[in-house]
């Protein structure tokens, strides 16, 4: 078990900066997710930790040990590949036993540990199957068992749920979280799926173009994003742009005032704020408050209903609610409102583009 520390880690491929100056500490037992679009450098970070790639600058420490220049073999990490990378010539038992066998552990110990690991991922009866004979979900669990059976310091998961269908993915998410908590193992997960990141992690690093945009708890990065990229990458957001009126709120280009806390922002400075769709209330046109708008699109999502709206001032807005809580049909004129507490002024500098 151990903490991970990134100290000014960078990776360049020629002129391309895959990872820029990453400094962050992962606490012992923490579940940290690296979230970003494809090409953001998140898998590179995982390879750097695993030792499959050498950093161009900086240091990586695992459990207080500088592993920057160690071979993968010496790092004591359990890595689950996106493709699982199960050995096709070995059966499930031998796959899981592999890390123990190459460490020369006695046969009795291997048998006991492998049996325990397989029981932990509910694959008891399948020890003598070949990986090719298993479903995607089962293969994923074999890969997981193989990665933790030798009690590594940390667990690395590269889009482990990417190849599973949606229903299975939700099941495995719950299992994975329970397993990680039981083992108490520091875990680094890489994904482009924001739902996965939000539901599994203690903290999330949001990455774009190799640079860390924000690090925080799921609640923080969702409700208080550091910038537009984070706001847009973690779900839908209504972006409101205008100038700060100190102590009152944000004056939009259209002239409306959006009440919110302005902190220490100077009067008249350009700024942007976001409101999450599920915080937006639809009111009848006759209501005296809110922004006047027309319903352009009504999207039914099962558990949710989402409305795309055109504000009279030209702004596009999105509202969402649990189906049945609110209703509006295409073409309806409504008023859009929210509580000032649900408006988050983006802390980014030079917000007005």
């Amino acid at each position, binding site marked *: 078990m151990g903490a991970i520390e990134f100290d000014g880690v960078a990776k360049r491929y020629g002129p391309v900066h895959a990872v820029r100056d990453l400094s962050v500490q992962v606490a012992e037992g923490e579940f940290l997710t690296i979230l970003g679009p494809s090409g953001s450098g998140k898998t590179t970070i995982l390879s750097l930790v695993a030792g499959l790639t050498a950093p161009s600058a900086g240091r990586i420490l695992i459990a207080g040990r500088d592993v920057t220049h160690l071979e993968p073999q010496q790092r004591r990490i359990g890595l689950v590949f996106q493709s699982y990378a199960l050995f096709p*010539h070995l059966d499930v038992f031998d796959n899981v036993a592999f*890390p123990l066998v190459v460490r020369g552990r006695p046969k009795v110990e291997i048998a006991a540990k492998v049996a325990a690991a397989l029981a932990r991922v509910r694959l008891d009866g399948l020890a003598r199957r070949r990986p090719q004979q298993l479903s995607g979900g089962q293969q994923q669990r074999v890969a997981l068992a*193989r990665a933790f059976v030798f009690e590594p310091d940390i667990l690395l998961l590269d889009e482990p749920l990417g190849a599973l269908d949606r229903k299975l993915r939700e099941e495995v998410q719950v299992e994975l979280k329970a397993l990680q908590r039981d083992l108490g193992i520091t875990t680094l997960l890489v994904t482009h799926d924001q739902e996965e990141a939000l539901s599994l992690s203690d903290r999330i690093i949001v990455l774009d173009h190799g640079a860390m945009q924000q690090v925080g708890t799921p609640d923080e990065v969702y409700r208080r994003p550091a910038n537009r990229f984070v706001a847009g990458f973690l779900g839908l957001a209504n972006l409101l742009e205008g100038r700060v009126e100190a102590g009152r709120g944000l004056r939009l280009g259209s002239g409306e005032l959006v009440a919110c806390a302005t902190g220490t922002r100077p009067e008249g400075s350009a700024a942007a704020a976001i409101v999450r769709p599920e915080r937006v209330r639809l009111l009848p046109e006759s209501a005296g408050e809110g922004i006047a708008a027309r319903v352009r699109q009504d999207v039914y999502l099962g558990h949710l209903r989402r409305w795309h709206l055109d504000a009279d001032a030209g702004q596009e807005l999105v509202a969402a609610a649990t189906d049945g809580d609110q209703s509006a049909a295409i073409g309806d004129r409504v008023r859009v409102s929210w509580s000032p507490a649900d408006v988050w002024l983006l802390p980014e500098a030079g917000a007005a583009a």
Partner: protein
Amino acid sequence: MRIGRNAGSYVVPLLVLMVVAFDVPILLMLAQSVLSPHPTVAHWAEFTESPIYFRVLGNTFQIAVITSAVCGLIGYPLAYWMRGLGGRAQLAVVTLVLLPFWISILVRTYAWIVVLGNNGFVNRSLIGLGITDRPISFLYNQLGVTIGTTNVLLPFLVLPLFAAMLKIDERLLQAAATLGAPRRAIFWRVFFPLSLPAFAAGLVLVFILTLGFYVTPAILGGGRVPMISNMLDVLINQMPRWELAAAISTLLLAATLALYGVYRTIAARSAS
């Protein structure tokens, strides 16, 4: 495919041509061993009774085993080395391995006489270096034949093996490394088992091809290292004993088909 439905009408004439011009003559030829001049087992009896034929068969199998083994010993490391090369170097080496395919076997085989003869490059170098004081006879013995067959057949093992090695997922080797396997263990526990089916298939292929080899053993063996094909040549062109040749050919065909079955089984397993 659009031609699918009518494919039969295109293929049937070719099939008929194959059967009439190729398969029927072979069957007629082979049938001579039991039907000529009338139904008899006399030719087979003669074959089983004279030890000379068995000695030639044994000799042929021995050379086939040695050739396969030497091809394997040279070919596996060569293919493994090629796999690790960078793009341009890899292309260059593949071309070098392929190059002999574009030169007539006859020319290549005679070239060995120039290289390995008593006055050849190798012997002169050995004598010049003082390693030996009289020429070593490389030619007209089993050693010469084996050198020749190995040279000709090596690409048949190396190229498919190299292709199979390229298909081995690099991530499996990385996974092995992260799981703590030292380089040696990665090779013996992951890489080698994954390449084994293609390697075995290559060995069987070389073995089959050696069994029926004619030109190279004839030239480099100088008639002193009889293999099955050379014996058939003698039986047909000099004796002439077509019936006996037919009997031996039947046996050779059966052995080859059996080995081909083994080859296909292994190849199919490596593909899955």
